[in-house]
């Protein structure tokens, strides 16, 4: 009787744990893919998505890995092939990428794209999704959490932004000229619309536009 009682309790407990997986919890509601005309359109649409997809990550990380190469916005399949060729994404990952993106998957792609080797554990046992997430969190590229948590569109955009800054951390910040900005702000240039480095041709064009 004691064995029967224990067996019944085990069956009940197993049912309580496994029943949700059988048909209770579903994937998060996915939004249909929005056609994007360029990278600005893509990232703005992405910022408003509740849940990012793996295909979104393929396109965003492909752009991150390409860097200054003017490849533009790739299609999801093209982006995946690009990443698989360069070892950023394993070939076993979904070719369509319609599933929701998890933090672990995003962290894995980010670490591979940026060449982050991690610590002893990552180097010995290889980069796994969990350890990549730990490393990305340590590098302040991603917020903490579990590797199976889903990623929102805004978080994906922010992560790509931080990852890009990380990839260019050793480069000089040459696209911000404080003196030129100040001069433009107070209107020390002739037209108050271009920086001090602008030539006379731009001034003439500005006059025509006005």
């Amino acid at each position: 009787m004691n064995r029967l009682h224990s067996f019944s309790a085990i069956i009940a407990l197993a049912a309580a744990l496994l029943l949700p997986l059988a048909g209770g919890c579903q994937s998060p509601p996915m939004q249909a893919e929005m056609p994007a005309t360029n990278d600005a359109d893509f990232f703005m649409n992405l910022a408003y998505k509740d849940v990012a997809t793996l295909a979104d990550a393929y396109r965003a990380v492909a752009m991150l890995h390409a860097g200054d190469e003017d490849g533009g916005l790739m299609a999801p399949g093209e982006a995946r092939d690009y990443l698989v060729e360069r070892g950023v994404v394993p070939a076993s990952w979904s070719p369509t990428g319609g599933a929701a993106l998890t933090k672990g998957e995003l962290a894995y792609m980010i670490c591979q794209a940026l060449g982050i080797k991690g610590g002893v554990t990552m180097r010995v046992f290889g980069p796994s999704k969990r350890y990549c997430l730990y490393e990305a969190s340590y590098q302040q590229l991603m917020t903490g959490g579990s590797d199976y948590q889903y990623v929102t569109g805004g978080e994906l955009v922010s992560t790509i932004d931080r990852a890009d800054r990380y990839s260019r951390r050793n480069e000089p910040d040459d696209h911000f000229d404080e003196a030129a900005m100040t001069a433009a702000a107070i209107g020390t240039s002739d037209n108050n619309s271009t920086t001090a480095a602008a030539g006379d041709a731009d001034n003439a064009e500005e006059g025509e536009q006005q």
Partner: protein
Amino acid sequence: MNLASGRILTMSRLSFDATLFCLAIIVALALPCPPAAAQQADPPASPTMPATDAAPAASTTTVTPVETAPTVNNDAPAGDVPANGAAVADANTANADGGDGQPAFACTVANVKRTVEWRPTESDPWAPVKEGLTLPVGSDIRTGFRAVCSLVFKDAASAVQLEPLTIIRIGEFTRADDGRVRTRLYLKQGATRSVVEKSRIESDFAIITPEITLAVQGTRVIHTTHQSDRGTRVRLSNSGLISVTNRLTGRGRQLRPGDSATGLMLLAIENAQFGAAVPIFDQYGGVTQNEQYSILRGPQVYAGVGTQQAPGSTQFSGAGGTPFDMELFWLQYMQYLELYEEWINWLEDNYPEYVPPSGPSIG
């Protein structure tokens, strides 16, 4: 135990197990799970900014100029214009016409790199931005991957550089009766670097993110970043003073060059190196300006939560009771001394035989 009671006991155990099994199923079915939803058909071609991104009412913003306003040249004509010839919007009307029925232009675009687009209103399509383009009030601007552009405002005082992956809207650009130009930028996503100079046209410049309102005046290089997963971060680089206010909690703080703060109004220590253990005490962290003033008036007491004692404090504590007011104490003490001196003088005048006490005085 006879056979009958044993059978009864067995039956009760089986029924108990069955009940337990049924309860487990009921609990499992009652667990909250996101329901499977059909994929959205016909998504909108271009998402619009949510209603929460709309400009907050003027009364909810707590913009405080932290520096003395520059002297306004009152002799200048009311319709004074910056050097580029574009007129600032008329007073008392937001988005006032520039004079010929066209929307007032707020800024000019400069230094465009890679993909930068704009649209006049939410219902208009996106168009690429070119250098020299003038943008009207209400325009949305978005930058792509590694794209930057600069917005030079027509108040002859401010310029903003948009960093990559930024979504921003020119919310306001108006001129009040007192000549102050009011500029409001709504930063939805991304980062900006702002330069606001003191000029002959008084400028009221602020950047509004979903979390905070950042008021600047006479300040150079304010780094404002808002990311959906980390919130807002503000950093002041070179010079000036800025006031940052969290609209939700009402708490704010002022940042000096080198300071940076998050939406929680917590100062961030970016670089620190200590030779020994140093207790870091942010005495004024997370308090309102009124609370900060009270603390400054009574430096020996920290009038906040808990029994923390500010540096240099004595036996007084801010936990419960009435905070000790040093300034009031000295004021009352000086009044007492004055009264004492007046009394001594009165005695000497009215009672010549009175001899004032010798020795050290009370004060």
